[in-house]
């Protein structure tokens, strides 16, 4: 059954445009979008802070070192408890980077002005109406751009694939996915083999869909948060001043705390799911069956 989508149906529901806006036109530099700009800011922040944290490191840590050590140690222990002491050395750099990058990106979107100053239907002296009905922010968190979340998910998928093949080999992966378990012989063995073959096909489909599920989940949550904050901020736009200004500050205010939590939660979910995927495909026991994507 094919579902039908219509941009006319979708657009009025969305306060913020679902697509990242190109900052330098759609030519050769068309890839420079508002989310790429923020991603570069996040990159700079991560670089500055990690450099500060690891410069002049001492056994008795200074403040920045202490915070980063806490973060890294916490993540390392969580990842190690999932993927095991052998895989953690290979998988941790990716998983730690995913967590920090997603968390900083998500929270970057909550800085006043990010995601709220831009072009679109609004009121006020500085308003510039865009060509469509949606709002185009000047700064957009990378995790509110499907290109960025897909980039994260595909990177994680590639690393997962390399770690899996390195650990169990191609044949091991095929046996792990399609091979019958339980050691039944005869007619029941054939039946169980057929069932596991079918389960393996489902598993392959779920594995292939992982980058999409991961990326769409993260994008959906953060983009929805951006839209909620923007919509609530403009709820009293038509009431005139000073209500418009007061409403734009007070109404979305409680939701910023919720978005702080959502930002952290999504970073944890993304990282933990990647860890679990790695753990499931790199364990050698008979019990390590993935039960598909439940999200």
């Amino acid at each position, binding site marked *: 059954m094919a*579902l039908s*989508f219509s941009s006319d149906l979708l657009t009025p529901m969305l306060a913020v445009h679902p697509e990242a806006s190109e900052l330098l036109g759609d030519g050769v530099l068309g890839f420079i*979008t508002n989310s790429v700009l923020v991603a570069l800011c996040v990159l700079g922040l991560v670089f500055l802070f990690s450099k500060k944290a*690891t410069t002049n490191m001492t056994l008795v840590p200074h403040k920045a070192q202490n915070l980063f050590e806490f973060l890294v140690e916490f993540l390392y222990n969580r990842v190690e408890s999932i993927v095991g002491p052998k895989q953690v050395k290979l998988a941790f750099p990716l998983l730690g980077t995913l967590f*920090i990058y997603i968390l900083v990106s998500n929270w970057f979107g909550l800085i006043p002005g990010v995601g709220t100053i831009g072009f679109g239907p609004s009121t006020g002296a500085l308003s510039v109406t865009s060509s469509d009905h949606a709002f185009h922010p000047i700064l957009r968190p990378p995790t509110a751009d499907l290109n960025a979340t897909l980039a994260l998910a595909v990177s994680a998928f590639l690393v997962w694939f390399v770690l899996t093949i390195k650990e169990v080999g191609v044949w091991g992966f095929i046996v792990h996915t399609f091979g019958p378990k339980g050691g039944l012989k005869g007619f029941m063995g054939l039946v169980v083999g057929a069932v596991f073959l079918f389960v393996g096909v489902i598993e392959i489909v779920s594995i292939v869909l992982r980058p999409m599920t991961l990326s769409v989940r993260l994008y959906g949550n953060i983009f929805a948060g951006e839209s909620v904050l923007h919509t609530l901020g403009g709820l009293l736009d038509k009431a005139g001043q000073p209500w418009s200004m007061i409403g734009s500050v007070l109404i979305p205010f409680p939701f910023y705390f919720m978005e702080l939590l959502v930002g952290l939660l999504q970073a944890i979910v993304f990282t933990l799911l990647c860890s679990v995927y790695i753990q499931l495909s790199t364990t050698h026991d008979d019990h390590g069956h993935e039960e598909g994507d439940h999200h």
Partner: protein
Amino acid sequence: MDLLSPMFGKLTPVLGAGAVDEIVNKFGLDFPKFIAQVIIFVLVYTILKKFAFGPILSMLEQRRQRIADGEAKLEKIARDLAEAEKNAKAVLDKANDDASRLIKEAGDSAKSLAEKRQQEAIHEANQIIAKSREAAKLEHEQLLSQLKREFGRMVSDATSRVTGKVLNSDDQSRINQETSAQVSL
């Protein structure tokens, strides 16, 4: 966008070919933008791996090792302390035993010495007493002989005065002998 379409093309059986293109267009999926994000993520990964995870994990390992060493040293110190306490107790016990023995020996020695001194004192006192007695006896005898002589002289003197006769030395000697024989003290 065209390069990303195959990835989302897997949804074609569910959504239909047009719907997939619609989603790709609607959410602005574009290959250059996608690659730009991948590159940025790889850069973040490289930076964190080089400047954060490497040094911090190394520092954590160094600190863990230091703590483990400290714990080992602490255990060794505790063991040494227990051993030292044990040795100190043994030394103290030995010293106590020695002290008790020495005190007992000193007591015995003192007692023996006191007895010896007492015996010596008694002996010395007896000697002094004996000497005193001897001296007293000698003095007594001297006094007695002196008294006898004096008494004899007095008798001779009295005899000569009563008789009016000058006594010669034989007379005096005979009177003295008789007087001495008569006087028994």
